[in-house]
């Protein structure tokens, strides 16, 4: 952590709070994002991730607390800050009637960029987003994955210092997700600061150097995926299923095995440093699970530990 303290802070939030009438969406959170890192906001729907993202995007004003983006005050310098942000909203918000290249041109013009410069940039972006052969297609005619890639390309047209991605792969098939992750990796390699909200733990593990786990508007934990897993979970997990009606009763009989047991409606999770010997022990004890699996601990387990709930209900 001492290393990161020396790095330049591009986003600083202190006691950041957002309320809508009586509803507290974000409840006094503190975090910092450093230049060049990939920072994640992980949490279930309604955790306050998107609200936090809107405040970082400098479009939604905070109710109280402090927020500084690129050294500026978003409440009064929103347009100046947004000149250096790239935003990929949860819903792509593309102009469906315009062609792919026109979407990029129009968006670039909002930043005051010249048409001449944009022409070259658009070629680069189409290449990066693997949309060269779709340049003259209407945005409406693209697949979901292509629309997402176009939205990311659009978010990069102003060569932003920070790229904000709100649930970047929600609704995409596995192949489209992997293509997108690859694109985001490349951006990170080029020094772009990424801020990503997601409720997919695999996505957070793949993309984020550091993340905050949010629930009900508050930060439950902060650190790198590996740090969080190490701190809040054991190395491995044994998943066993005995049928929905038996899981609860079998779990009581398994008490004392492993470091910790979590009972979910469809399965039992037993946390241990070594999963295979533990599973063998369970089977030897005469309890025959319908299915069993030994896997590495993930952020899903961290979230379960912190909140008692799964990320995707």
């Amino acid at each position, binding site marked *: 952590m001492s290393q990161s303290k020396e790095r330049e802070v591009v986003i600083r939030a202190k006691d950041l709070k957002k309320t809508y009438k009586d509803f507290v969406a974000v409840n006094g959170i503190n975090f910092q994002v450093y230049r060049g890192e990939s920072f994640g906001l992980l949490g279930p729907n309604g955790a306050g991730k998107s609200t936090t993202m809107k405040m970082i995007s400098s479009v939604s004003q905070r109710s109280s607390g402090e927020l500084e983006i690129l050294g500026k005050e978003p409440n009064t310098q929103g347009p100046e800050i947004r000149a*250096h942000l790239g*935003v990929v909203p949860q819903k792509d918000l593309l*102009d469906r009637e315009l062609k792919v290249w026109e979407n990029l041109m129009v968006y670039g013009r*909002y930043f005051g960029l010249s048409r001449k410069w944009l022409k070259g940039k658009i070629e680069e972006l189409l290449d990066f987003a693997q949309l060269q052969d779709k340049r003259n297609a209407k945005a409406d005619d693209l697949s979901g994955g292509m629309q997402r890639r176009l939205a990311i390309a659009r978010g990069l047209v102003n060569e932003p210092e920070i790229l904000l991605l709100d649930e970047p792969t929600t609704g995409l098939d596995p192949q489209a997700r992997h293509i997108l992750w690859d694109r985001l990796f490349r951006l990170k390699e*080029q020094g772009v600061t990424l801020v990503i909200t997601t409720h997919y733990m695999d996505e957070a593990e793949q993309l984020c150097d550091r993340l905050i786990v949010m629930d009900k508007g508050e930060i439950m934990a902060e650190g790198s995926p590996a740090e969080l897993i190490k701190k809040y979970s054991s190395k491995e997990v044994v998943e066993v299923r005995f049928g929905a009606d038996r899981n609860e009763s079998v779990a009581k009989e398994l008490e004392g095995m492993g470091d910790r047991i979590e009972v979910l409606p469809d399965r039992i999770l037993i946390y241990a440093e070594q999963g295979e010997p533990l599973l063998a022990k369970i089977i030897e004890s005469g309890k025959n699970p319908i299915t069993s699996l030994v896997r590495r601990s993930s952020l899903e387990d961290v979230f379960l530990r912190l909140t008692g709930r799964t990320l995707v209900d």
Partner: protein
Amino acid sequence: MTDLRFAPGKVVDPKRAVKFGAWRVAEYRFYSMSKWMGAIFAFGLGNPILYLISVGLGIGALVDANTGGQGILGVSYLQFVAPALLASAAIQGVMDEVTFPTMDGFVWDKLFFAINATSVSARQIADGVMIVALGRGLFTCLLYLGVLLAFGAVPFSSVLGLIASSMLAAWGWAAVMLAITARLERDEGYFAIIGRFVIAPMFLFSGTFYPLEQMPIYLQPLGWLSPLWHATELGRNLSYGMEIEPSMFWTHIGYLALLGVIGMAFTYPKFAERLSR
């Protein structure tokens, strides 16, 4: 595939980016409109030609025959209705450009939220919508004027005055409609209601086809409220010299300007509020 050449934060000058945002919003909208320019042109030209043939010449022949060739207030019926039709066309032109794009921006495709994620502010988006609306209104107005001149319905010397009075009414009306449309959270057939219960009555009760004074006194306030009536009165004065008191001349201008100022004053905060949710 090649990697991006990327210089984060270097290509955009924030000071330059925050200026002229309204014009960039307008540029985008004009670009979108250029794709159906043929339809805009055909409607802008076809509408006045059909109106002038049916109302100006058709009904005009009947009116002029029944007034012993005196027409109305000393001018032919065509000359009488021409300023009203012109202002009405300008109002209709801006109406289309403040209502549908605003609903699209906030409700249907939510494109305003994408624009607001750039260095363009909420106020600039509202101004951009208004610039395009006035552009469309002016375009319609010019086409209409061309046809009116061809029909000999207005003198050439009144062209600038007629454009000014029609566009002032168009701006006042557009600002009010923009403020109202910005408050619509859902599409519930609102435009059909406005068309049937506001636009059509405004057209009929604004002294368009006959002097407002012909109406019973208890119906005349409908005309007084209507921007079309104020623009029509100004237009008739500027076109064929219909006499109006100087105080009324300035009252008409003041009323239309007031609508515009009030409309925009209610528009800006609502745009900012909706885009910050």
